[in-house]
C-alpha cells in the first residue's frame, strides 16, 4: 500500500504501467487535510489544498505573493484545480531516463544514464551519482519561507522543515523525500514575517504545462530599505531545492543596489557544475537571481 502523495503526477506512470500498485488510497476524502487557516504567526495550509485554491487566496496574495506566484506557475489551470500543494512538493523525479526504459541508479540500477546522455533538463548543482532535478515549483518557495511540514504516521505526529523533508541522492538515491510508507504529509505551516517580501520566477521551454528548466524563489524582510534574512532558493537545477548561501551573504544587510544584485547573481552560480547539454542553466540561474532580486527590491 502506498498513499497517493502525488496522484496527478502518478497518473501517467499508471497509464504507462511503470508503476503498478495493487491499491491506491485516495486521501482526498479526508476534509481535515484541506484548507488554509491563518493564525497570528503563521498560515497553515492543508497538504491537500489545491494549487488553484492557493493562487486564488486573497490573504496569501497579500502576505506571501511568492508562494501564490509559484502555485500559479505549476502546469496548467486544469492540473492546478486538481493537483495539491502536498503532491506538488512530494513529486517524483521527472528524469526521462528514470521514467523511461533504462535502469538507472534511482530505478535501482548502477549507472546514471543522464550523466552521459542527453542531460538538457538535469542538475548543475548537487548531482551525486543521480543528476535529476527537483521538479516542484512550490518547493523552493516553501524552503525560502522556512515552511514547516507536519507529518502523521504510525510513529506519531512530528514536524520538520520542508528543506529537511526533501532528500538529496547522496542521502537516499531512490526517494525524493523522507516520508515513510506509513506516513502522510498533513499540513504546511508558513511563518508570517513582518515586512517580508517574496517572489518566484520560473523559466521553462513552454509558458504553460511545463516543468522548470530553472526557477528561483526569493524571500527577505525589508526594513528601512535594508534586506535581512534573505533566502535565495533555486528549483529545477539540483535534486533538491538549492539554497545559495553565497548569494544570500552578498545580499544580507544591503540596500539591494544593482551592483549588489549583480554580485549575488554571480555568487549564485559560482560552484555550478554543468553537464554537456545544460550549460545554458548557468546563465539562466544568473538571470533569474538578478530578476528575482530586482523585482521585490523596488
Amino acid at each position, binding site marked *: 500500500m502506498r498513499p497517493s502523495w502525488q496522484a496527478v503526477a502518478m497518473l501517467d506512470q499508471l497509464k504507462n504501467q511503470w508503476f503498478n500498485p495493487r491499491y491506491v488510497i485516495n486521501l482526498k476524502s479526508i476534509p481535515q487535510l484541506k484548507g488554509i487557516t491563518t493564525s497570528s504567526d503563521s498560515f497553515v495550509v492543508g497538504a491537500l489544498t489545491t494549487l488553484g485554491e492557493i493562487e486564488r487566496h486573497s490573504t496569501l496574495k497579500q502576505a506571501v505573493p511568492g508562494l501564490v506566484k509559484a502555485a500559479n506557475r505549476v502546469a496548467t489551470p486544469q492540473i492546478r484545480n486538481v493537483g495539491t500543494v502536498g503532491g506538488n512538493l512530494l513529486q517524483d523525479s521527472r528524469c526521462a*531516463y528514470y521514467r523511461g526504459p533504462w535502469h538507472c541508479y534511482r530505478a535501482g540500477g548502477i549507472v546514471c544514464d543522464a550523466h552521459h546522455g542527453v542531460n538538457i533538463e538535469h542538475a548543475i548543482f548537487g548531482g551525486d551519482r543521480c543528476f535529476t532535478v527537483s521538479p516542484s515549483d512550490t518547493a523552493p518557495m516553501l524552503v525560502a519561507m522556512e515552511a514547516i511540514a507536519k507529518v502523521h504516521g504510525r510513529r506519531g505526529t512530528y514536524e520538520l522543515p520542508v528543506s529537511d523533508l526533501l532528500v538529496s541522492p547522496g542521502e537516499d538515491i531512490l526517494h525524493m523525500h523522507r516520508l515513510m510508507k506509513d506516513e502522510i504529509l498533513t499540513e504546511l505551516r508558513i511563518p508570517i514575517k513582518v515586512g517580508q517580501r517574496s517572489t518566484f520566477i520560473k523559466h521553462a521551454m513552454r509558458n504553460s504545462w511545463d516543468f522548470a528548466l530553472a526557477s528561483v524563489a526569493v524571500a527577505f524582510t525589508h526594513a528601512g530599505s535594508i534586506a535581512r534574512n534573505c533566502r535565495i532558493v533555486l528549483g529545477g537545477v539540483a535534486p533538491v531545492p538549492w539554497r545559495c548561501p553565497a548569494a544570500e551573504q552578498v545580499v544580507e544587510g544591503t540596500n539591494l543596489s544593482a551592483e549588489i544584485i549583480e554580485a549575488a547573481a554571480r555568487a549564485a552560480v559560482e560552484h555550478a557544475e554543468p553537464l554537456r547539454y545544460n550549460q545554458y542553466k548557468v546563465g539562466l540561474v544568473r538571470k533569474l537571481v538578478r530578476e528575482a532580486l530586482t523585482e521585490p527590491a523596488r
Partner: protein
Amino acid sequence: LLLFWVTYISEYSKSTGPSWSESAWDYVSDASRSVHCHGKAMYNAALDLKARLLKQGPRSPDDLTPYYDPKLDINPVLNEETGSITPHPEAKLSASTVALARKAIAAGGVVGLGYYVYNPTVQGWGASFAEVEVDMETGQVRVLKLVGVHDVGRVIHRPGAEAQVHGGGVMGLGFTMTEELITDPHNGIPVNQSLYDYRPPSILDVPEITPILVEAPVEAGPYGAKGLGENPVFDAGAAVANAIYNATGVPMGELPFTWQRVYDALKQSGKLVR
C-alpha cells in the same frame, strides 16, 4: 436538383479515400490542394449542371462522363513503361458515385458532374518574416512577431485562409523552437517518449502572427485560387534562423533552436555574455 463533384487525383487513384453513402467520392482534404482541386471540381460540376439545366437537358443514366475544361485542366501523366504522356487521363467515377447519380436521375433529378485533376504547374508561394529577441547570456530565443505573406491566387474564404496562416505559423514555430525527437546517443532509444515531452507549443508560446494574403490568380484554379495549406508551416524555421543571425551574427544550422543549441553556437563564436 443535385450537384455532384468528383476530384480525381491521378497519383492517389488506387488508394482508398473516405466515402459517405450520400455524397460523391472525394479525396481527403489535405496538403495544399483542397481549395484548388475540390474547388475546381465543384466549379466544373456547377458549369455542367448549368449547361444541362439551360441547354442540354438531364443526363441519361448511362452518360456519366464528368465535365472538365480541356484547355486549363491539364494533368500530364507519364507512362513509365512506354514513355508516352497522356495530357488528360481518363476519369473514373467510383461505384458509389455512379450509384448515387443513377438514383438521383431515376428520381427525376438533374445531375451535374465535374472533374479536376491537380495541375502540378500551379504552386502557391509565400514568405515569412520573424522578429526575435536573443538572450546572449542563456541562449533563449523569443519570437516576438511572425508575419506570413502568401500568394494564394484568390482568397475564397478569408477567415479560413487567415486562420491557416495562424495555424501553420504555430506548427512552424513548434518545430522551430521546441519540438524534437531526442534519442540517446549511446543506444538510440528515444528519450522523450510522449507528446508532452515532445513539447508542441502551448497557446501562451504563440507570438503575434500577422497574415498577409496576396492574390495573383492562376487560370487553372477555381476563380484563380492556388493552394495554401502547408505553406505557412515551411518558412517559420528559416525566418527565425535568419532573424537570429541578423540579431547575433551567429548562423544556426540545426532546428529546433533550443536554449542549449543557441548557447553552444554563441559560445563557439565567442559572443556568449558571461
